[in-house]
């Protein structure tokens, strides 16, 4: 007998899925804001070769970029408590996302910073701009303008990657899906709908981030 697809049990729990999607977005927004902040700090240390921080950030970037997010998450959630650092599943999930995105955005933003043309710095100096002004208007903003599309993609990758946070019982979208699946035994239908929600979130997030970029990063003259 052919399998009968039955989506009703999934849609009966639509509220759980929506709540989960909301939590996934909240995780992503928190992770993105803090992660990009960390990335800016890291990029400055790397680009200006501030010893010993440039070395520390270099090692950090390599370690994070060459290990899976899931292992980073497990290390933080299961491993750190034996050093006395205990945290809940939300804190662990956010921390893992910040650390992960921080490493990638350090590299991305650094590429933007070192692409600052020398003449621009000289022009800023000849206009008697202070170091802080020069950095803000001449270095950082143009750097962020250049790399905004890459940062957007990385934030989306982190959002999709957050699906594995369900493994430490963070109650985000995949956790909700696992719950519904275990109640309804409709695994395929549940994950199919969940995948569609993730896809919609990814499309939405890209639109929003590009719009934000146009408005706040790229739009105004530097």
């Amino acid at each position: 007998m052919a399998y009968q697809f039955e989506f009703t049990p999934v849609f009966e729990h639509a509220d759980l899925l929506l709540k989960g999607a909301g939590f996934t977005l909240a995780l992503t927004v928190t992770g993105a804001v803090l992660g990009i902040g960390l990335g800016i700090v890291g990029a400055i240390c790397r680009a200006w070769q501030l010893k010993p921080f440039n070395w520390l950030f270099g090692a950090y970037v390599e370690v994070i970029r060459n290990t899976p997010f899931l292992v980073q998450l497990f290390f933080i959630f299961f491993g750190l408590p034996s050093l006395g650092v205990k945290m809940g599943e939300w804190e662990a999930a956010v921390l893992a996302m910040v650390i992960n995105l921080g490493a990638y955005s350090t590299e991305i933003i650094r590429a933007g910073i070192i692409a600052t043309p020398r003449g621009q710095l000289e022009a800023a100096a000849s206009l008697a701009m202070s170091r802080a002004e020069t950095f803000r208007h001449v270095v950082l903003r143009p750097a962020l303008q250049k790399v905004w599309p890459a940062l957007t993609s990385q934030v989306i990758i982190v959002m999709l990657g957050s699906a594995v946070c369900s493994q430490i019982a963070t109650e985000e979208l995949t956790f909700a899906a696992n719950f519904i699946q275990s109640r309804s035994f409709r695994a395929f239908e549940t994950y199919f709908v969940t995948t569609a929600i993730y896809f919609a979130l990814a499309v939405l997030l890209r639109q929003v981030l590009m719009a934000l970029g146009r408005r706040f990063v790229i739009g105004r003259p530097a």
Partner: protein
Amino acid sequence: MFTQFSTWDIVRNLLEGGKWTLALTLIAFVLGGIAGLLVLFARIAGSRLLQTASKAYIEVFQGTPLLMQLFIVFFGLSLAGVDVSPWVAAAIGLTLFTSAYLAEIWRGCVESVSKGQWEASASLAMRYTEQMRYVILPQALRIAIPPTVGFSVQVVKGTAVASIIGFAELTKTGSMLANATFQPFMVFGFVALGYFFLCYPLSLYAKHLERKFHVAR
């Protein structure tokens, strides 16, 4: 019964799991490369239909979590009456994932071959297949090598997600050992180290190739 695990026991078991990580990576990368070529040809084909279909394929795999892709393959195939092990489901899922990303990377490389090359080869009365075979692909291939090596790191890291559908690779072995030994800090430290040893040389090699090709051009 409690068994005592020495540090060496932990490392030995992790190495065993690491073998499966390596095997899964190789399979996903090789099969994904072949499938990726097919998707690439569809993506740059003359036919609108093939272009749209392959574009949708790439966007779906790049816009959804790998974990969901594995779940759908795992549960979808068993609905279709094929009894799949986590191992087969992981291999299929990661192959599809890899093919979508590689096709997109390679498309960029094909498109970066300058238009004049197409026009010159067309003026030599070459057919589309000949242009591809003798003019475009050899040049695109050169550009494609560094990002392809770079992407292999993503495949290695992607295999960790297969632990969630129950495939006993490095991460899954680590989880089981952490539960058995109550030493999660050390075990996951070793697991991370294992991935690092697999990925870091690939990252360095990709960077090296990138630099080399930049100088050569």
